[in-house]
């Protein structure tokens, strides 16, 4: 079942890891989408 957290979008730091109820490491979504390789810096070609 899809997990949606409705009530915790408030101002400031929100500690989610301790309250979400599906902390099993292997039981998480393995979706087909992708957001790029392990490079997070901004790209010189765009300057």
């Amino acid at each position, binding site marked *: 079942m*899809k997990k949606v957290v409705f009530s915790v979008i408030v101002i400031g730091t929100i500690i989610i890891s301790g309250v979400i109820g599906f902390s099993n490491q292997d039981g998480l*979504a393995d*979706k087909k989408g*992708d957001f790029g390789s392990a490079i997070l*810096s*901004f*790209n010189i070609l765009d300057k």
Partner: protein
Amino acid sequence: MEHLGIADHLHNWTLSIQLDKKEAAHSIYEKLNKHIVEYDTETLAAYFLIESRYHTIVGNLQESRQSLAKAREYEEIFTELQHYKLFFAEGFIYYYEKQYQDAIATLEKAEKYMSPSMEPAEIGEFHLIKAMVYYFLDITSLSAVHAAKAVENFKTLEPLSFLLARTELVLGMNHLDMSDYETAEKHLLTALSTCKKIKNHSLLASANLNLGVLYVTRGLPATAIRYLEDALAGKQKRIELNVLFLLADSYWKTNQAGKAMQAYSEGFQKSLDRDNTKTKWEFAMLHKKYEDRDNFEIVWKEGIEYFRRVNDKYNVRTYSKELAQYYTDKKQYEHATTYYLLALI
């Protein structure tokens, strides 16, 4: 190396890393690394944190982790910002190891050390990585919140278009999860356009893959094929198996059995070569769905059992739902109920 010059070298090294100038970063790394025994503790703390980030951009996550372990030896003298960088880097590594729960826990530790004086790029990338983690945790609402915060920070500076494009990808996939296909398409096409403009081939392949996922989900396999073929042409090993899987599925749906078998065979073989049992089952189940219907039920049951054993709940849900529908269509309601219940885990 002059001791007085080390701070400048560290600064230049950081800039090279941020600008993704790998050759310059490597050159500075080699110079600094030779003189490591001469550094005082403050310099060593800064050095190992930057070294971790350097190893990340050249794709050595294991070495990045080792640098963080060395940095931790100086944790007592860390500044607030160094604490932030340590936890952020750890969270980043967990993300790429697909340990999303650990990633969130570590990023929450990093968040405690964030300061408004940090640069927009740094604040934005924190929210971006958190949005990416929440996407894979299937918590769409929080992924969207952090993606929006990332956009706020990235949109202020032109050189951050690369990161803005990555954020557009996250927003697009969030809207896809909410079945808001038009908005999803808008974000993904914007990201695609930016990737082309900045000639970032790696992210371009990801954008094409995500558009493929969108059109497969919308039931438009012919449109999906166009983007998936482009994604495959991008030759990104990281996403190759996902692309081949969706391509095989789309070819079968559009009655191109020859091409489908080719994509399936390549994906199945590469799953074996890479010892990836999960994708091996996914390809095997796809093949039984379209080509070998006599063995469909037995292989799908075994596949779902495998996913249950390794606690891959996402795949248990996905495949159980489809198998339940199959049994419903065949009026085998007892079997259907079993798999509908499994689809709810």
